[in-house]
């Protein structure tokens, strides 16, 4: 009898980690492609370098930990981390910024904890936060869109200069909506409200023709990607809806009471990294709570913290910080929020037998 003891089920839905990652990348692709088009070759270079750096770091770490690198690399999680990190960087940022972020994301954010599935923090956000703290200038130097093929767009060579050395960078810097608003606000209300009014939700926001991170400007395409993920069942609605509510509801309230010193809801929704965060960052499986209800709370927390940071803290954008803070809360949420078990009440006690509770 040469039998092998295998346990049921003897069937599988066919879902796989690689497939999940690939679906997320597919959903992220349109917004990224738009970023490539809007910010030109430097953006393409930066994205490529960052993704490659992530994969390489992952491979080195896996080798160093004595694991077979190929099967783990094949699941695509390192590529996705690099991709998410890249799309949250300023599009014309120098390549070394992407590399430093990538090494931080994979080595510090993921592998030191034991690799896939073990990291308490979202690796891409670890990279981004580290860069924000260490290199605040490079991380907040934005450019206005220079669509590929338009007159102002850098060609292949000029782009290489920008990505490798930061040449010709200063000439074209532009303020991001959230950043510009915050800066102006310290000088006076008029400038700020001018910026807020100059922001056109449709063309600047939904379509994405504005200064901002590589892949987070095109709100419309991000929304499309998010809906695609929802439809494919890759993500649940809980975390994104929580995050959107967490930012937009207090923002709406605050804007009605302080219309001059705060941004309108549309600017919060389309003007920063909210949609990217809601659909692609807070939905990260590993670092968010393990139950649907927990994810709603998690999303709400991320949203509220983002709102607080955007309005009351020193940084104009707060998604990355908010996500990392809530990542730290995840174990607590997982302890507190669990599904109700069949035959038990919410507190885990067995339900009373039928008619058994009458005396």
């Amino acid at each position, binding site marked *: 009898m040469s*039998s092998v003891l295998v346990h049921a089920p003897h069937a599988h839905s066919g879902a796989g980690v690689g497939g999940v990652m690939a679906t997320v990348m597919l959903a992220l692709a349109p917004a990224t492609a738009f970023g490539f088009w809007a910010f030109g070759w430097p953006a393409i270079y930066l994205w490529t370098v960052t993704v490659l750096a992530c994969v390489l770091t992952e491979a080195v770490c896996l080798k160093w930990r004595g694991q077979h690198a190929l099967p783990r690399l094949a699941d695509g999680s390192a590529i996705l981390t690099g991709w998410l990190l890249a799309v949250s960087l300023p599009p014309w940022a120098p390549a070394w910024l992407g590399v430093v972020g990538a090494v931080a994301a994979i080595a510090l954010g993921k592998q030191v904890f034991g690799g896939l599935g073990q990291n308490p923090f979202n690796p891409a956000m670890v990279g981004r936060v580290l860069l924000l703290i260490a290199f605040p200038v490079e991380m907040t130097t934005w450019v206005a869109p220079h669509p590929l093929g338009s007159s102002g767009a850098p060609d292949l060579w000029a782009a290489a200069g920008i990505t490798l050395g930061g040449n010709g960078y200063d000439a074209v810097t532009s303020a991001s909506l959230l950043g510009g608003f915050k800066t102006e606000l310290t000088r006076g209300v008029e400038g700020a409200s001018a910026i807020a009014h100059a922001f056109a939700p449709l063309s600047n926001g939904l379509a994405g023709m504005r200064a901002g991170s590589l892949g987070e400007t095109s709100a419309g395409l991000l929304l499309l990607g998010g809906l695609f993920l929802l439809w494919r069942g890759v993500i649940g609605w809980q975390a994104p809806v929580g995050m959107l509510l967490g930012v937009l509801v207090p923002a709406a309230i605050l804007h009605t009471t302080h219309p001059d010193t705060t941004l309108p809801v549309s600017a919060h929704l389309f003007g920063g990294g909210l949609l990217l965060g809601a659909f692609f960052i807070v939905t990260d499986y590993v670092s968010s709570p393990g139950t649907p209800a927990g994810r709603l709370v998690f999303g709400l927390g991320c949203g509220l913290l983002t709102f607080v940071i955007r309005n009351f803290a*020193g940084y104009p954008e707060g998604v990355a910080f908010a996500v990392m*803070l809530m990542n730290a809360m995840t174990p607590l949420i997982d302890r507190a929020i669990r599904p109700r078990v069949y035959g038990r009440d919410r507190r885990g006690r067995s339900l009373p037998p039928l008619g058994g509770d009458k005396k």
Partner: protein
Amino acid sequence: MLLALAALTTLGLGLGLLLGTAARLLKVEAEPITAELEAMLPGSQCGQCGFPGCAGAAAALADGRAPVTLCPPGGRDLAQRLAERLGVSVDLSGMADAGPRIAAVDESICIGCTRCFKVCPTDAIVGAVKQIHAVIRDACTGCSKCVDICPTESLHLIPIPVTPQTWAWPKPAHTPVLAKPVLADAGCH
């Protein structure tokens, strides 16, 4: 920038404090460990560890005078649990993983000398002078005292026979073996 750093630091400190307090509040009062260890030992007082009975062994374990591998009837499993309980790391590879065992009488060579059931700490062997002895499976702890004393080597330890009632799935391997064709015993004609 500074504000953010300050905020992060405050938050970190706050969380740390919270966790610290929680750890303190939720801390389980340490039981008298000797009693707990004694409860883990087989309790047959067989003395193979060289201590006077299981209580003596538990006391010795508690103050570190004895290794966790001291109890032969408990085997590797017990050693592992003791190591876990005491928070020590131990190399168990040298310890035979025989699993729990019980004594069995080879009826062809038993001469009915009655020596074995005089030493059995749990009265698990029955018989009488000049009659073949038998082991009561449920009462035997596998301490091997009888095996040592048997003049004809008729007693030996066997693994406890597995029945469908006691069989259990083994721990899943980290990378499970994939199924191979299973029909070696009955071809597919």
